């Protein structure tokens, strides 16, 4: 597990070299069960995944399979009942700035302006003003919302709010960015725009991202790897690396390779068997 060096070849033009000294996140035999009255409901039965540095990993699965719960455990907002989750050799328990998160509901602080929202984490870490201002400016530029820097969240559309939420999380330099169906509440047009933007943002710094979605197309478009979870009590069904071109535009969705990945993962999702670790 630890110290494995890996050089990954792709089928397309661009070559991705995974800079792997250690795995970033290691989840071993994670289990989450709820005890109600006399019954025990097992949400997550046994999940083991490994996420490497600079990866963009999506986790897809049927509704209610516990993928959000898994993410929340990684964030430290929820507790596992069995197994471990480790980030950079440290056990995950409490939430912290090292694991930034973007939620499905817009969680911008309504009493702060766009730029004050992005500033929030920096202020807590007592980053000096000049440096913080630079960071905020940079991210405003990346999410293309500089003219709205002094607006309040209620004046922004859903898509714009999510952009600010992403900027706020990333500006705080987390080790990992966790995203829980961030585009789920958006209309399809905005969603496509946001996917493109997200990919572009990732291509700049290549933060490590764990992304939850039930939209397979979205998962394939954004990720370097897709995990497929089964329904409750859930396990990992499959682990699919995505070897597509590095620079992605929306037209990619119409290519044969893309469609193949989409079909494959869709089939896996609907397949009743629990197959572990199918490498393509």
């Amino acid at each position, binding site marked *: 597990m630890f110290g494995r060096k890996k050089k990954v070849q792709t089928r397309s033009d661009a070559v991705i070299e995974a800079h792997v000294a250690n795995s970033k996140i290691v989840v071993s035999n994670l289990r989450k069960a709820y005890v109600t009255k006399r019954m025990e409901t097992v949400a997550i039965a046994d999940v083991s995944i490994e996420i490497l540095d600079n990866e963009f990993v999506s986790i897809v699965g049927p509704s209610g399979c516990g993928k959000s719960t898994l993410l929340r455990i990684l*964030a430290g907002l929820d507790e596992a009942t069995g197994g471990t989750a480790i980030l950079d050799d440290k056990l995950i328990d409490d*939430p*912290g700035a090292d694991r*930034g*998160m973007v939620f499905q*509901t817009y969680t911008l*602080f309504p009493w702060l302006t766009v730029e004050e929202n992005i500033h*929030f984490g920096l202020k807590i870490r007592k980053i000096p003003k000049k440096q913080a201002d630079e960071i905020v400016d940079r991210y405003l530029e990346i999410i293309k919302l500089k003219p709205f820097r002094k607006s309040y969240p209620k004046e922004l559309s859903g898509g714009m709010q999510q952009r600010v939420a992403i900027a706020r999380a990333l500006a705080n330099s987390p080790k990992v960015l966790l995203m829980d169906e961030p585009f789920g509440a958006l209309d399809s047009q905005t969603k496509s725009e946001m996917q493109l933007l997200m990919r572009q943002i990732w291509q700049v710094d290549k933060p490590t991202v764990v992304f939850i979605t039930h939209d397979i197309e979205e998962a394939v478009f954004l990720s370097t790897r897709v995990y497929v979870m089964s329904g409750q009590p859930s396990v990992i069904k499959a682990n699919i690396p995505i070897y597509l071109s590095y620079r992605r535009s929306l037209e990619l969705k119409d290519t044969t390779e893309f469609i193949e990945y989409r079909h494959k993962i869709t089939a896996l999702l609907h397949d009743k068997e629990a197959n572990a670790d199918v490498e393509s």
Partner: protein
Amino acid sequence: MRKLFRIRTKIDIKLYNALALGVFLLVLILWTMLSEGGSISQIFLPSPKSVLTYLIHVFGSGQIWPDIGISAYRIFMGFVIAAVIGIPLGILAGTFNFAEALIQPLTEFIRYMPVPAFVPLIMVWFGIDESAKIALIFLGTLFQLIPMVADNVRAVPEDLLSAAYTLGAKRITVIMKVIIPAIAPRTMDTLRIMIGWAWTYLIVAELVAANSGLGYNILKAQRYLKTDAIFGGILIIGCLGLLTDRLFALANRKLFPWAEGGK
């Protein structure tokens, strides 16, 4: 015409205002007819004219201002003390479950005790000066305020707190920098509602033991069967209550322009 009865459909603002004004006028006309008609004695229903005369007299001569002043002072003091104590307690109860267990059950119990019944007790404890009236208003408002603030705190979306944690905030920061700003507009609204109650309790206090204030004025009028003064006094209090209500609503909009549902 059909538009009038469509659910939740707004009507022309001019029509709205005309209807509202019309109701007031109708009441005024009915009132005048009943009292001038002579069927009801002046003791029961003073005519609008006599009430107006009374109001012009007390405002013109300026004699009403000290009473308005002292009543306003009592409400302000009782209210401020209740807010200073009640808001932090409410925040604690809403934030920490153990604090809720300590604070809320007792608060809910006291909340249902009728405040006017406390008056004789307060007179024994505090005597008859300003502290007694302020104490009454304090008692009346504190135990309503605490549960309302606690509820406001609980209404803050969980995700907002989660987001703060994932940005590196620790507990104290979450309370000071997330919960408190988040509940600000709602709490301002809670205070607006409470000021209305405060007026009611003030009048009770001033009817029982006072030598100044709007309630005392009404009591004096009652003893002399001057119902025009009683009506006038009630009107003044009503208008003052409305004024404070609107002031709070305005302050809410101005101080928290970022709030949803505001301007």
